[in-house]
């Protein structure tokens, strides 16, 4: 594991948490870095919605196949088991004969994944979601990678609760809903931009994110302004603050 990449990652995450914090941007960066640091093929963060679902908050890439794999895990799969038990869940050699999670394993192997890990995002006694990692080759993650993976999952939890002083227990529930709604706004913006410029969803996300960073705005604010704008021009004309 690259020590420079590791320290750069933590500096970057810390920077994001301080200035103009956007929770979805933060979680997306975390999934990106998780892939690099842990030699994974893909990563995602799912959050438990009290409506009764595990919902994707961020994903290292937007390929339909990967999103489908998160979707299936509402019924079966490592994320669901991880969420229910609060413990890491591993499968090191997925095959389409898997007995534990037949539908999930069939879909995962079809998309080229052979190893999967789900690491719990825990806050005191509560499991609020999971960091899900995928690899194309079979075989265990080594213990150092798993410790780092769990640390990244813990950082994701801390980042979500960007209020330092979580006094009321309801604050967690409120912040999770804010994050989930931000995600919806960003998906709506991706759709509008993808249609306007004939892009795929992944590319549309990158454009929104890069524009937000370059103009010093929060990703969610850029997304909301774009979705509610009467035009589909992008980049948008500068707005004067309200």
């Amino acid at each position, binding site marked *: 594991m690259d020590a420079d990449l590791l320290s750069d990652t933590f500096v970057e995450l810390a920077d994001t948490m301080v200035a103009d914090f956007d929770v979805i941007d933060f979680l997306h960066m975390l999934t990106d870095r998780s892939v690099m640091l842990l030699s994974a093929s893909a990563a995602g963060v799912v959050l438990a*919605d009290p409506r009764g679902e595990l919902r994707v908050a961020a994903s290292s890439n937007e390929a339909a196949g990967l999103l489908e794999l998160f*979707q299936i895990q509402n019924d079966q799969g490592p994320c669901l088991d991880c969420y229910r038990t609060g413990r890491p869940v591993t499968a090191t050699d997925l095959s389409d004969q898997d007995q534990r999670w037949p539908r999930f394993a069939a879909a995962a192997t079809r998309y080229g994944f052979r190893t999967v890990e789900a690491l719990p995002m825990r806050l005191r006694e509560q499991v609020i979601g999971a960091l899900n990692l995928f690899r194309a080759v079979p075989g265990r993650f080594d213990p150092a990678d798993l410790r780092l993976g769990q640390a990244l999952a813990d950082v994701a939890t801390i980042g979500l609760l960007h209020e330092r002083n979580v006094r009321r227990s309801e604050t967690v529930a409120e912040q999770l809903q804010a994050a989930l709604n931000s995600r919806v706004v960003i998906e*709506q913006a991706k*759709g*509008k931009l993808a*249609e306007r410029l004939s892009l795929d969803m992944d590319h549309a996300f990158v454009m929104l994110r890069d524009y937000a960073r370059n103009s010093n705005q929060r990703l969610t604010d850029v*997304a909301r302004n774009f979705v509610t704008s009467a035009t589909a021009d992008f980049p948008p004309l500068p707005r004067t603050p309200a």
Partner: protein
Amino acid sequence: MWYQLAAHAAAAGTRVSLADVCGVAAGSAQLSGGWVAASRNEEPDFVMCATDPVCERLAELQLTLAEGPCHDVLVSAAPVLAADLDDAEFSHRWPAFTPEARERGAAAVFAFPLIFGAIRAGVMGLYRRTAGPLREGQFGDLLILADIATMLLLGSLGDGAVTDPDGDGSWLDGQAPDLALHRAEIDQATGMLTVQLGVPVAEAFARLRAYAYSQDRRLADVASEIVARRLRLDPDPVPDGGP
């Protein structure tokens, strides 16, 4: 949850309405009352229904004072769960609203934004005469009811013909359960339709639902087709590659 609403409405001999949502919401979480206010310009300014006069007063108060949990939820796009109004945080946050609310008998107030991403329809407010948090299952139920209230509000504002093609609310029966499992593609397709149809986002979502209803298809399936660019909704919807 859907069946509770249908039963509540059937008992009154009507289709499911906002009044049913308020009634079931207050009853399901042992609360004292609930209300829904529609929001036009970022303020929850039009009370659509309320289960008792205390609710009406709490809703009015927040509008006049321009502060309070219903006001906050539209800013933060997150629920506000004020389980105990005597908590110092709330008199600090809402210095004018909190003492007035206490005087009216509200010890706890729970507010939910009625939104789907950038689509904003209003707020749902609930109060209880005694302080105390929601139990975990109750919070989930109220979130689901908030989604249904959002759909009802979106159907009642704007072009009723688009969102309620048979004019009797029956479209909701097929569609509320459709939102049970959230799909990113529904949100993406909504965004795409703002461009394809040249309409604001709330109407784009309404047109998406109306199309799915008219084709007797699941909302998520129609959304997938649109995102995969196998289906466009132009004024005359045709599959891609049509004449």
